[in-house]
Protein backbone atom coordinates (compact mmCIF):
# COMPACT_ATOMS: atom_id res chain seq x y z
CA UNK A 1 0.00 0.00 0.00
CA UNK A 2 2.64 2.47 1.05
CA UNK A 3 4.47 2.00 -2.22
CA UNK A 4 1.44 3.10 -4.15
CA UNK A 5 1.03 6.13 -1.97
CA UNK A 6 4.52 7.32 -2.57
CA UNK A 7 4.24 6.93 -6.31
CA UNK A 8 2.36 10.14 -6.79
CA UNK A 9 5.42 11.80 -8.31
CA UNK A 10 5.56 10.01 -11.61
CA UNK A 11 9.04 8.57 -11.51
CA UNK A 12 8.62 5.61 -13.80
CA UNK A 13 8.02 7.81 -16.78
CA UNK A 14 11.46 8.96 -17.76
CA UNK A 15 11.96 9.66 -21.41
CA UNK A 16 8.29 10.33 -21.97
CA UNK A 17 7.07 13.74 -23.09
CA UNK A 18 5.67 15.33 -20.00
CA UNK A 19 2.49 17.27 -20.62
CA UNK A 20 2.03 20.74 -19.25
CA UNK A 21 -0.66 19.52 -16.92
CA UNK A 22 1.64 16.89 -15.57
CA UNK A 23 4.48 19.28 -15.15
CA UNK A 24 2.20 21.59 -13.26
CA UNK A 25 1.18 18.81 -10.98
CA UNK A 26 4.81 17.77 -10.67
CA UNK A 27 5.61 21.19 -9.27
CA UNK A 28 3.46 20.08 -6.46
CA UNK A 29 1.38 22.50 -4.48
CA UNK A 30 1.59 22.38 -0.72
CA UNK A 31 -0.10 19.58 1.13
CA UNK A 32 -3.25 20.88 2.71
CA UNK A 33 -4.16 17.63 4.41
CA UNK A 34 -2.34 14.40 4.98
CA UNK A 35 -3.87 11.38 6.56
CA UNK A 36 -1.33 9.20 8.29
CA UNK A 37 -2.16 5.55 8.93
CA UNK A 38 -5.79 6.54 9.32
CA UNK A 39 -8.01 3.82 10.68
CA UNK A 40 -11.74 4.10 11.23
CA UNK A 41 -14.23 1.64 12.62
CA UNK A 42 -17.89 1.14 13.33
CA UNK A 43 -17.92 -0.89 16.50
CA UNK A 44 -15.65 -3.87 15.85
CA UNK A 45 -15.71 -3.50 12.06
CA UNK A 46 -12.69 -1.68 10.72
CA UNK A 47 -13.65 0.12 7.52
CA UNK A 48 -10.43 2.07 6.97
CA UNK A 49 -7.28 0.04 7.43
CA UNK A 50 -4.49 2.54 7.62
CA UNK A 51 -4.80 5.15 4.89
CA UNK A 52 -1.89 7.48 4.26
CA UNK A 53 -2.81 10.01 1.62
CA UNK A 54 -1.91 13.61 0.81
CA UNK A 55 -4.55 16.13 -0.24
CA UNK A 56 -2.94 18.96 -2.17
CA UNK A 57 -3.87 22.57 -1.69
CA UNK A 58 -6.24 24.15 -4.21
CA UNK A 59 -6.49 20.93 -6.14
CA UNK A 60 -9.39 18.62 -6.69
CA UNK A 61 -8.73 15.16 -5.33
CA UNK A 62 -11.15 12.38 -6.22
CA UNK A 63 -11.60 9.33 -4.05
CA UNK A 64 -12.88 6.41 -6.12
CA UNK A 65 -13.64 2.82 -5.35
CA UNK A 66 -16.49 0.30 -5.25
CA UNK A 67 -19.35 0.57 -2.76
CA UNK A 68 -18.32 -0.16 0.78
CA UNK A 69 -14.62 0.51 0.17
CA UNK A 70 -14.58 3.19 2.84
CA UNK A 71 -14.37 6.28 0.63
CA UNK A 72 -17.22 8.11 2.40
CA UNK A 73 -15.79 7.17 5.77
CA UNK A 74 -12.44 8.52 4.67
CA UNK A 75 -13.71 12.01 3.87
CA UNK A 76 -15.88 12.00 6.99
CA UNK A 77 -12.70 11.52 8.98
CA UNK A 78 -11.18 14.65 7.44
CA UNK A 79 -13.62 16.97 9.22
CA UNK A 80 -14.29 14.77 12.22
CA UNK A 81 -17.81 13.92 11.11
CA UNK A 82 -17.16 10.19 11.29
CA UNK A 83 -17.20 10.20 15.06
CA UNK A 84 -20.73 11.65 15.17
CA UNK A 85 -22.10 8.31 13.97
CA UNK A 86 -23.11 5.58 16.36
CA UNK A 87 -20.14 3.56 17.73
CA UNK A 88 -17.74 5.16 15.29
CA UNK A 89 -14.07 5.42 16.25
CA UNK A 90 -10.94 6.79 14.60
CA UNK A 91 -7.26 6.03 15.04
CA UNK A 92 -4.25 7.49 13.30
CA UNK A 93 -3.67 11.09 12.35
CA UNK A 94 -5.08 13.66 9.97
CA UNK A 95 -2.75 16.59 9.49
CA UNK A 96 -4.42 19.82 8.46
CA UNK A 97 -1.70 22.31 7.58
CA UNK A 98 0.66 19.94 9.35
CA UNK A 99 -1.28 19.86 12.63
CA UNK A 100 -3.16 16.74 13.72
CA UNK A 101 -6.90 17.43 13.97
CA UNK A 102 -7.29 14.42 16.28
CA UNK A 103 -4.80 15.57 18.86
CA UNK A 104 -6.05 16.14 22.37
CA UNK A 105 -7.82 19.39 23.07
CA UNK A 106 -8.95 20.05 19.51
CA UNK A 107 -12.57 21.12 19.15
CA UNK A 108 -14.16 19.26 16.25
CA UNK A 109 -16.52 22.21 15.81
CA UNK A 110 -13.58 24.46 14.89
CA UNK A 111 -12.28 21.87 12.42
CA UNK A 112 -15.66 21.63 10.70
CA UNK A 113 -15.57 25.39 10.26
CA UNK A 114 -12.38 25.12 8.25
CA UNK A 115 -13.31 21.92 6.42
CA UNK A 116 -16.78 22.17 4.92
CA UNK A 117 -18.87 19.30 3.68
CA UNK A 118 -21.51 18.59 1.05
CA UNK A 119 -23.47 15.39 1.37
CA UNK A 120 -24.72 12.78 -1.04
CA UNK A 121 -28.32 13.79 -0.56
CA UNK A 122 -28.98 17.53 -0.82
CA UNK A 123 -29.92 18.53 2.71
CA UNK A 124 -30.96 22.18 2.90
CA UNK A 125 -32.74 22.99 6.15
CA UNK A 126 -36.45 22.67 5.32
CA UNK A 127 -37.49 25.11 8.04
CA UNK A 128 -35.33 27.88 6.57
CA UNK A 129 -35.61 30.09 3.50
CA UNK A 130 -33.03 30.01 0.74
CA UNK A 131 -31.25 33.05 2.16
CA UNK A 132 -31.38 31.67 5.68
CA UNK A 133 -29.92 28.41 4.45
CA UNK A 134 -26.94 30.22 3.01
CA UNK A 135 -26.35 32.01 6.30
CA UNK A 136 -27.16 28.97 8.46
CA UNK A 137 -23.57 28.26 9.44
CA UNK A 138 -23.29 31.73 10.90
CA UNK A 139 -26.78 32.15 12.30
CA UNK A 140 -26.91 28.75 14.00
CA UNK A 141 -23.74 29.50 15.89
CA UNK A 142 -25.11 32.86 16.97
CA UNK A 143 -22.62 34.93 15.04
CA UNK A 144 -23.45 38.48 14.08
CA UNK A 145 -23.78 38.80 10.32
CA UNK A 146 -22.96 42.38 9.31
CA UNK A 147 -23.62 42.32 5.55
CA UNK A 148 -26.25 39.65 5.18
CA UNK A 149 -27.38 40.25 1.65
CA UNK A 150 -23.86 40.74 0.31
CA UNK A 151 -22.80 37.45 1.84
CA UNK A 152 -25.87 35.64 0.52
CA UNK A 153 -25.24 36.95 -2.97
CA UNK A 154 -21.53 36.18 -2.88
CA UNK A 155 -22.01 32.61 -1.73
CA UNK A 156 -24.85 31.95 -4.16
CA UNK A 157 -22.81 33.39 -7.03
CA UNK A 158 -19.89 31.19 -6.07
CA UNK A 159 -22.24 28.23 -6.13
CA UNK A 160 -23.62 29.33 -9.54
CA UNK A 161 -27.11 29.56 -8.13
CA UNK A 162 -27.65 33.29 -7.76
CA UNK A 163 -29.36 33.93 -11.09
CA UNK A 164 -31.85 31.15 -10.52
CA UNK A 165 -32.89 32.13 -6.99
CA UNK A 166 -32.25 35.84 -6.61
CA UNK A 167 -35.98 36.61 -6.87
CA UNK A 168 -37.16 33.83 -4.58
CA UNK A 169 -34.74 34.14 -1.65
CA UNK A 170 -37.50 34.06 1.01
CA UNK A 171 -38.84 30.75 -0.29
CA UNK A 172 -38.10 27.51 1.50
CA UNK A 173 -34.85 25.81 0.57
CA UNK A 174 -36.82 22.61 0.14
CA UNK A 175 -38.83 24.13 -2.72
CA UNK A 176 -35.88 24.00 -5.11
CA UNK A 177 -35.04 21.18 -7.51
CA UNK A 178 -32.52 18.55 -6.43
CA UNK A 179 -29.63 20.10 -8.33
CA UNK A 180 -30.47 23.56 -7.05
CA UNK A 181 -30.71 22.20 -3.52
CA UNK A 182 -27.26 20.69 -3.85
CA UNK A 183 -25.83 23.99 -5.08
CA UNK A 184 -27.59 25.68 -2.17
CA UNK A 185 -25.77 23.29 0.15
CA UNK A 186 -22.52 24.17 -1.58
CA UNK A 187 -23.31 27.87 -1.11
CA UNK A 188 -24.10 27.19 2.55
CA UNK A 189 -20.69 25.59 2.99
CA UNK A 190 -18.90 28.32 1.00
CA UNK A 191 -20.49 31.09 3.07
CA UNK A 192 -18.21 30.02 5.89
CA UNK A 193 -15.20 30.52 3.62
CA UNK A 194 -13.79 27.04 4.25
CA UNK A 195 -10.23 26.09 3.40
CA UNK A 196 -11.27 22.62 2.30
CA UNK A 197 -14.54 21.39 0.82
CA UNK A 198 -15.40 17.71 1.15
CA UNK A 199 -18.01 16.39 -1.26
CA UNK A 200 -19.46 12.97 -0.60
CA UNK A 201 -20.91 11.77 -3.90
CA UNK A 202 -22.52 15.16 -4.47
CA UNK A 203 -24.11 14.21 -7.78
CA UNK A 204 -25.36 10.71 -7.13
CA UNK A 205 -28.91 11.91 -6.45
CA UNK A 206 -28.96 14.26 -9.45
CA UNK A 207 -29.87 14.02 -13.11
CA UNK A 208 -27.16 14.40 -15.81
CA UNK A 209 -27.80 18.10 -16.45
CA UNK A 210 -27.66 18.99 -12.76
CA UNK A 211 -24.57 16.80 -12.48
CA UNK A 212 -22.85 18.68 -15.29
CA UNK A 213 -23.53 21.99 -13.54
CA UNK A 214 -22.07 20.76 -10.27
CA UNK A 215 -19.00 19.40 -12.04
CA UNK A 216 -18.48 22.71 -13.77
CA UNK A 217 -18.78 24.37 -10.40
CA UNK A 218 -16.24 22.02 -8.84
CA UNK A 219 -13.89 22.93 -11.63
CA UNK A 220 -14.22 26.64 -10.89
CA UNK A 221 -14.03 26.26 -7.13
CA UNK A 222 -10.95 24.09 -7.39
CA UNK A 223 -8.85 27.18 -8.06
CA UNK A 224 -9.70 28.71 -4.69
CA UNK A 225 -10.55 25.87 -2.37
CA UNK A 226 -9.04 22.49 -1.72
CA UNK A 227 -11.64 19.96 -2.80
CA UNK A 228 -11.98 16.29 -2.00
CA UNK A 229 -14.73 14.56 -3.93
CA UNK A 230 -15.95 11.05 -3.35
CA UNK A 231 -17.44 9.48 -6.42
CA UNK A 232 -18.33 6.06 -7.70
CA UNK A 233 -18.43 7.53 -11.18
CA UNK A 234 -15.02 7.21 -12.80
CA UNK A 235 -15.87 9.48 -15.71
CA UNK A 236 -16.69 12.12 -13.16
CA UNK A 237 -13.35 11.68 -11.43
CA UNK A 238 -11.67 11.94 -14.82
CA UNK A 239 -13.55 15.14 -15.60
CA UNK A 240 -13.08 17.07 -12.39
CA UNK A 241 -10.12 15.77 -10.44
CA UNK A 242 -6.44 16.72 -10.60
CA UNK A 243 -5.54 13.72 -8.48
CA UNK A 244 -7.28 10.46 -7.88
CA UNK A 245 -7.01 7.94 -5.10
CA UNK A 246 -8.39 4.43 -5.50
CA UNK A 247 -9.63 2.79 -2.33
CA UNK A 248 -10.49 -0.87 -2.11
CA UNK A 249 -11.68 -2.78 0.97
CA UNK A 250 -10.57 -0.02 3.30
CA UNK A 251 -7.08 0.25 1.84
CA UNK A 252 -5.46 2.75 -0.48
CA UNK A 253 -4.50 0.92 -3.64
CA UNK A 254 -3.22 3.75 -5.75
CA UNK A 255 -2.87 7.51 -5.78
CA UNK A 256 -1.60 9.79 -8.48
CA UNK A 257 -2.44 12.44 -11.07
CA UNK A 258 -5.83 11.57 -12.46
CA UNK A 259 -4.79 11.05 -16.06
CA UNK A 260 -1.98 8.75 -15.07
CA UNK A 261 -4.16 6.67 -12.75
CA UNK A 262 -6.68 6.25 -15.52
CA UNK A 263 -4.32 5.70 -18.44
CA UNK A 264 -1.44 3.83 -16.85
CA UNK A 265 -2.46 2.50 -13.48
CA UNK A 266 0.45 1.04 -11.53
CA UNK A 267 -1.69 -1.57 -9.81
CA UNK A 268 -3.55 -4.42 -11.40
CA UNK A 269 -6.56 -3.89 -9.11
CA UNK A 270 -6.86 -0.27 -10.22
CA UNK A 271 -6.85 -1.33 -13.82
CA UNK A 272 -9.43 -4.02 -13.16
CA UNK A 273 -11.66 -1.52 -11.46
CA UNK A 274 -11.44 1.26 -14.01
CA UNK A 275 -11.93 -1.13 -16.87
CA UNK A 276 -15.04 -2.39 -15.15
CA UNK A 277 -13.88 -5.88 -14.32
CA UNK A 278 -15.19 -5.56 -10.77
CA UNK A 279 -16.99 -3.08 -8.54
Amino acid at each position, binding site marked *: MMKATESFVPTAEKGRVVTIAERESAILPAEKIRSVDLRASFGATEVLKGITLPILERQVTAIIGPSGCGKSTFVRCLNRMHETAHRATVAGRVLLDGRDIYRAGIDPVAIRRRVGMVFQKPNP*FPTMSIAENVLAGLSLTGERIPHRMELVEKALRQAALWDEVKDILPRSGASLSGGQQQRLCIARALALDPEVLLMDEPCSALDPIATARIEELIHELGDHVTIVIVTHNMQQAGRVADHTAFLYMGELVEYGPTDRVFTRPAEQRTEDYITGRFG
Partner: protein
Amino acid sequence: MAADTHETRTANRGDLVFQRLIVVGAVVMVVLLAAIALELTRESRLSLSASGVRFLGSTAWDPVKELFGGLPFIYGTLVSSFLALLVAVPVSLGVAIFLVELAPSWLRGPVGFMVELLAALPSVVYGLWGIFVLVPWLRGGVEPALARSLGFLPFFSGPSQGFGMLAGGLVLSIMILPTIASVSREVLRAVPNWLREGALALGTTRWEMIRGTVLPFARSGIIGAVILGLGRALGETMAVTMVIGNRPKIAASLFAPGYTMASVIANEYTEATGDLHLSALAEIGLLLFAVTLALNALARLLVWRVSRVAVQGSRR
Protein backbone atom coordinates in the same frame (compact mmCIF):
# COMPACT_ATOMS: atom_id res chain seq x y z
CA MET B 1 -68.53 -10.43 -3.56
CA ALA B 2 -67.72 -12.53 -6.58
CA ALA B 3 -68.04 -15.99 -5.10
CA ASP B 4 -68.71 -17.90 -8.27
CA THR B 5 -67.30 -21.27 -7.22
CA HIS B 6 -67.59 -23.26 -4.04
CA GLU B 7 -63.81 -23.27 -3.74
CA THR B 8 -63.31 -19.54 -3.54
CA ARG B 9 -66.15 -19.20 -1.06
CA THR B 10 -64.52 -21.51 1.49
CA ALA B 11 -61.15 -19.88 0.97
CA ASN B 12 -62.61 -16.47 1.68
CA ARG B 13 -64.72 -17.38 4.66
CA GLY B 14 -61.98 -16.70 7.21
CA ASP B 15 -61.19 -13.35 5.62
CA LEU B 16 -64.83 -12.45 5.54
CA VAL B 17 -65.41 -13.26 9.21
CA PHE B 18 -62.31 -11.35 10.20
CA GLN B 19 -63.31 -8.37 8.12
CA ARG B 20 -66.82 -8.30 9.60
CA LEU B 21 -65.38 -8.52 13.11
CA ILE B 22 -63.04 -5.60 12.74
CA VAL B 23 -65.66 -3.50 11.01
CA VAL B 24 -67.99 -4.16 13.94
CA GLY B 25 -65.21 -3.17 16.32
CA ALA B 26 -64.53 0.05 14.47
CA VAL B 27 -68.21 0.94 14.27
CA VAL B 28 -68.69 0.23 17.97
CA MET B 29 -65.96 2.76 18.80
CA VAL B 30 -67.64 5.49 16.82
CA VAL B 31 -71.09 4.64 18.12
CA LEU B 32 -69.81 4.62 21.69
CA LEU B 33 -68.31 8.06 21.34
CA ALA B 34 -71.46 9.42 19.77
CA ALA B 35 -73.59 7.75 22.43
CA ILE B 36 -71.57 9.35 25.22
CA ALA B 37 -71.90 12.77 23.66
CA LEU B 38 -75.61 12.25 23.11
CA GLU B 39 -76.24 10.95 26.61
CA LEU B 40 -74.31 13.81 28.23
CA THR B 41 -76.29 16.31 26.20
CA ARG B 42 -79.55 14.61 27.16
CA GLU B 43 -78.63 14.52 30.83
CA SER B 44 -77.64 18.17 30.88
CA ARG B 45 -80.75 19.37 29.03
CA LEU B 46 -82.40 20.55 32.22
CA SER B 47 -79.40 22.61 33.24
CA LEU B 48 -78.91 23.86 29.71
CA SER B 49 -82.46 25.21 29.55
CA ALA B 50 -82.36 26.56 33.12
CA SER B 51 -79.25 28.68 32.88
CA GLY B 52 -78.13 28.49 29.25
CA VAL B 53 -74.97 30.36 28.45
CA ARG B 54 -74.96 32.01 31.89
CA PHE B 55 -73.80 28.67 33.26
CA LEU B 56 -70.37 29.34 31.81
CA GLY B 57 -70.04 32.76 33.42
CA SER B 58 -71.63 32.26 36.83
CA THR B 59 -69.44 31.70 39.88
CA ALA B 60 -72.22 30.70 42.26
CA TRP B 61 -72.31 26.98 43.04
CA ASP B 62 -74.78 26.24 45.79
CA PRO B 63 -76.71 22.99 45.44
CA VAL B 64 -78.89 23.84 48.47
CA LYS B 65 -80.17 27.04 46.84
CA GLU B 66 -80.12 25.30 43.46
CA LEU B 67 -77.60 27.82 42.10
CA PHE B 68 -75.29 26.28 39.55
CA GLY B 69 -72.49 28.20 37.87
CA GLY B 70 -69.65 26.42 36.15
CA LEU B 71 -67.01 29.11 36.15
CA PRO B 72 -65.05 28.12 39.30
CA PHE B 73 -64.57 24.64 37.89
CA ILE B 74 -63.63 25.82 34.43
CA TYR B 75 -61.22 28.24 36.05
CA GLY B 76 -59.78 25.56 38.33
CA THR B 77 -59.31 23.08 35.49
CA LEU B 78 -57.68 25.63 33.22
CA VAL B 79 -55.39 27.11 35.87
CA SER B 80 -54.25 23.79 37.32
CA SER B 81 -53.64 22.40 33.83
CA PHE B 82 -51.78 25.51 32.74
CA LEU B 83 -49.66 25.35 35.86
CA ALA B 84 -48.93 21.72 35.11
CA LEU B 85 -47.83 22.59 31.58
CA LEU B 86 -45.63 25.40 32.85
CA VAL B 87 -43.66 22.95 34.95
CA ALA B 88 -43.91 19.82 32.82
CA VAL B 89 -43.14 21.17 29.35
CA PRO B 90 -39.56 22.32 29.97
CA VAL B 91 -38.73 19.25 32.04
CA SER B 92 -40.19 16.72 29.63
CA LEU B 93 -38.68 18.43 26.60
CA GLY B 94 -35.35 18.25 28.38
CA VAL B 95 -35.88 14.56 29.04
CA ALA B 96 -36.83 13.91 25.41
CA ILE B 97 -33.87 15.86 24.02
CA PHE B 98 -31.55 14.09 26.42
CA LEU B 99 -32.87 10.67 25.46
CA VAL B 100 -32.69 11.21 21.71
CA GLU B 101 -29.75 13.52 21.21
CA LEU B 102 -27.39 13.32 24.14
CA ALA B 103 -27.69 10.21 26.29
CA PRO B 104 -25.19 7.40 25.74
CA SER B 105 -27.03 4.48 24.17
CA TRP B 106 -26.83 2.24 27.25
CA LEU B 107 -28.71 4.87 29.24
CA ARG B 108 -31.50 5.46 26.73
CA GLY B 109 -33.38 2.25 27.41
CA PRO B 110 -33.47 2.39 31.23
CA VAL B 111 -34.29 6.10 31.48
CA GLY B 112 -36.93 5.86 28.76
CA PHE B 113 -38.46 2.91 30.58
CA MET B 114 -38.60 4.78 33.87
CA VAL B 115 -40.27 7.76 32.24
CA GLU B 116 -42.93 5.46 30.84
CA LEU B 117 -43.29 3.82 34.24
CA LEU B 118 -44.37 7.19 35.61
CA ALA B 119 -47.29 7.04 33.20
CA ALA B 120 -48.26 3.60 34.43
CA LEU B 121 -48.65 4.55 38.10
CA PRO B 122 -52.31 4.72 39.18
CA SER B 123 -53.35 8.28 39.82
CA VAL B 124 -54.54 7.52 43.35
CA VAL B 125 -50.90 6.79 44.19
CA TYR B 126 -49.96 10.25 42.99
CA GLY B 127 -52.78 11.59 45.14
CA LEU B 128 -51.48 9.83 48.23
CA TRP B 129 -47.98 11.06 47.56
CA GLY B 130 -49.46 14.53 47.18
CA ILE B 131 -51.24 14.34 50.53
CA PHE B 132 -48.36 12.87 52.50
CA VAL B 133 -45.36 14.52 50.90
CA LEU B 134 -46.16 17.37 48.55
CA VAL B 135 -48.82 19.18 50.56
CA PRO B 136 -46.87 19.33 53.85
CA TRP B 137 -43.78 20.39 51.94
CA LEU B 138 -45.67 23.17 50.16
CA ARG B 139 -47.36 24.35 53.37
CA GLY B 140 -44.25 24.24 55.52
CA GLY B 141 -41.53 25.31 53.12
CA VAL B 142 -42.28 26.29 49.56
CA GLU B 143 -45.34 28.47 49.99
CA PRO B 144 -43.97 30.59 52.86
CA ALA B 145 -40.75 31.04 50.91
CA LEU B 146 -42.64 32.05 47.77
CA ALA B 147 -44.78 34.43 49.80
CA ARG B 148 -41.69 36.06 51.27
CA SER B 149 -39.85 36.51 47.99
CA LEU B 150 -42.66 36.95 45.47
CA GLY B 151 -45.53 37.85 47.80
CA PHE B 152 -46.15 41.12 45.97
CA LEU B 153 -47.65 39.05 43.15
CA PRO B 154 -51.27 38.11 43.78
CA PHE B 155 -50.55 34.45 42.88
CA PHE B 156 -48.24 34.06 45.83
CA SER B 157 -50.18 36.00 48.44
CA GLY B 158 -52.38 34.85 51.28
CA PRO B 159 -51.97 32.10 53.84
CA SER B 160 -50.06 28.93 53.02
CA GLN B 161 -52.62 26.18 52.98
CA GLY B 162 -50.89 23.32 51.26
CA PHE B 163 -54.05 21.89 49.76
CA GLY B 164 -54.73 24.18 46.83
CA MET B 165 -54.20 25.10 43.21
CA LEU B 166 -50.40 24.91 43.46
CA ALA B 167 -50.47 21.37 44.85
CA GLY B 168 -52.97 20.32 42.17
CA GLY B 169 -50.88 21.84 39.40
CA LEU B 170 -47.67 20.22 40.62
CA VAL B 171 -49.17 16.75 40.96
CA LEU B 172 -50.61 17.14 37.49
CA SER B 173 -47.28 18.24 36.09
CA ILE B 174 -45.63 15.03 37.26
CA MET B 175 -48.48 13.00 35.82
CA ILE B 176 -48.36 14.56 32.35
CA LEU B 177 -44.58 14.60 32.18
CA PRO B 178 -44.27 11.05 30.80
CA THR B 179 -46.92 11.71 28.15
CA ILE B 180 -45.19 14.80 26.84
CA ALA B 181 -41.71 13.30 27.20
CA SER B 182 -42.43 10.06 25.40
CA VAL B 183 -44.41 11.60 22.54
CA SER B 184 -41.72 14.28 22.06
CA ARG B 185 -39.12 11.57 22.10
CA GLU B 186 -40.87 9.80 19.24
CA VAL B 187 -41.19 13.08 17.37
CA LEU B 188 -37.48 13.84 17.80
CA ARG B 189 -36.61 10.33 16.68
CA ALA B 190 -38.53 10.97 13.47
CA VAL B 191 -36.28 13.93 12.69
CA PRO B 192 -34.05 12.66 9.87
CA ASN B 193 -30.36 12.35 10.48
CA TRP B 194 -29.33 14.32 7.41
CA LEU B 195 -30.66 17.38 9.14
CA ARG B 196 -28.35 16.87 12.11
CA GLU B 197 -25.36 16.09 9.88
CA GLY B 198 -26.00 19.18 7.79
CA ALA B 199 -25.87 21.36 10.87
CA LEU B 200 -22.88 19.64 12.48
CA ALA B 201 -20.89 19.85 9.25
CA LEU B 202 -21.34 23.63 9.39
CA GLY B 203 -19.49 23.69 12.66
CA THR B 204 -22.39 23.97 15.04
CA THR B 205 -22.20 22.60 18.53
CA ARG B 206 -24.63 19.88 19.50
CA TRP B 207 -26.85 22.37 21.30
CA GLU B 208 -26.84 24.83 18.37
CA MET B 209 -27.74 21.95 16.07
CA ILE B 210 -30.64 20.88 18.29
CA ARG B 211 -31.97 24.37 18.87
CA GLY B 212 -31.51 25.66 15.35
CA THR B 213 -32.53 22.69 13.21
CA VAL B 214 -33.95 19.72 15.13
CA LEU B 215 -36.45 21.60 17.32
CA PRO B 216 -37.79 23.84 14.52
CA PHE B 217 -38.26 20.75 12.38
CA ALA B 218 -40.08 18.93 15.18
CA ARG B 219 -42.04 21.95 16.34
CA SER B 220 -45.54 20.96 15.38
CA GLY B 221 -45.03 17.43 16.69
CA ILE B 222 -43.86 18.79 20.01
CA ILE B 223 -46.87 21.07 20.18
CA GLY B 224 -48.94 17.95 19.59
CA ALA B 225 -47.20 16.24 22.50
CA VAL B 226 -47.90 19.20 24.74
CA ILE B 227 -51.56 19.20 23.78
CA LEU B 228 -51.82 15.49 24.53
CA GLY B 229 -50.36 16.23 27.95
CA LEU B 230 -52.80 19.07 28.40
CA GLY B 231 -55.64 16.74 27.50
CA ARG B 232 -54.56 14.39 30.23
CA ALA B 233 -54.26 17.25 32.73
CA LEU B 234 -57.72 18.54 31.93
CA GLY B 235 -59.36 15.21 32.54
CA GLU B 236 -57.31 13.93 35.47
CA THR B 237 -59.60 13.43 38.45
CA MET B 238 -58.43 11.41 41.39
CA ALA B 239 -55.00 12.83 42.16
CA VAL B 240 -56.19 16.39 41.72
CA THR B 241 -59.28 15.86 43.83
CA MET B 242 -57.06 14.61 46.64
CA VAL B 243 -54.85 17.70 46.80
CA ILE B 244 -56.59 20.71 45.27
CA GLY B 245 -58.82 21.55 48.23
CA ASN B 246 -62.20 21.22 46.52
CA ARG B 247 -63.72 24.63 47.15
CA PRO B 248 -65.72 26.21 44.30
CA LYS B 249 -64.24 29.68 44.64
CA ILE B 250 -62.05 31.65 42.32
CA ALA B 251 -59.01 33.00 44.15
CA ALA B 252 -56.06 34.81 42.65
CA SER B 253 -53.64 33.08 44.99
CA LEU B 254 -52.31 29.71 43.93
CA PHE B 255 -52.09 28.76 47.60
CA ALA B 256 -55.88 28.89 47.95
CA PRO B 257 -58.01 25.81 47.39
CA GLY B 258 -59.78 25.41 44.08
CA TYR B 259 -61.93 22.90 42.28
CA THR B 260 -61.79 21.31 38.86
CA MET B 261 -64.49 20.11 36.49
CA ALA B 262 -63.49 16.48 36.85
CA SER B 263 -63.24 16.72 40.64
CA VAL B 264 -66.68 18.20 41.18
CA ILE B 265 -68.30 15.50 39.07
CA ALA B 266 -66.49 12.78 41.02
CA ASN B 267 -67.25 14.34 44.40
CA GLU B 268 -70.86 15.35 43.99
CA TYR B 269 -72.46 12.95 41.56
CA THR B 270 -73.28 10.20 44.05
CA GLU B 271 -74.70 12.66 46.58
CA ALA B 272 -76.56 14.90 44.19
CA THR B 273 -80.29 14.77 44.93
CA GLY B 274 -81.94 17.47 42.86
CA ASP B 275 -82.47 16.89 39.16
CA LEU B 276 -80.98 20.27 38.37
CA HIS B 277 -77.84 19.45 40.36
CA LEU B 278 -77.37 16.21 38.44
CA SER B 279 -78.02 17.97 35.20
CA ALA B 280 -75.51 20.71 36.01
CA LEU B 281 -72.86 18.09 36.72
CA ALA B 282 -73.66 16.43 33.41
CA GLU B 283 -73.25 19.74 31.68
CA ILE B 284 -69.80 20.11 33.21
CA GLY B 285 -69.06 16.62 31.95
CA LEU B 286 -70.23 17.57 28.48
CA LEU B 287 -68.00 20.63 28.52
CA LEU B 288 -65.00 18.60 29.61
CA PHE B 289 -65.73 16.02 26.93
CA ALA B 290 -65.87 18.66 24.22
CA VAL B 291 -62.68 20.37 25.31
CA THR B 292 -60.61 17.18 25.53
CA LEU B 293 -61.99 15.87 22.23
CA ALA B 294 -61.09 19.09 20.44
CA LEU B 295 -57.60 19.17 21.96
CA ASN B 296 -56.89 15.57 21.06
CA ALA B 297 -58.00 16.13 17.50
CA LEU B 298 -55.70 19.12 17.28
CA ALA B 299 -52.80 17.13 18.70
CA ARG B 300 -53.33 14.34 16.20
CA LEU B 301 -53.36 16.82 13.38
CA LEU B 302 -50.08 18.37 14.46
CA VAL B 303 -48.27 15.07 14.99
CA TRP B 304 -49.52 13.87 11.62
CA ARG B 305 -48.22 17.00 9.98
CA VAL B 306 -44.68 16.64 11.30
CA SER B 307 -44.43 12.97 10.34
CA ARG B 308 -45.66 13.78 6.85
CA VAL B 309 -42.99 16.45 6.44
CA ALA B 310 -40.38 13.97 7.65
CA VAL B 311 -41.47 11.41 5.07
CA GLN B 312 -41.39 13.98 2.29
CA GLY B 313 -37.95 15.08 3.42
CA SER B 314 -36.50 11.61 3.39
CA ARG B 315 -37.88 10.91 -0.07
CA ARG B 316 -35.88 13.70 -1.64
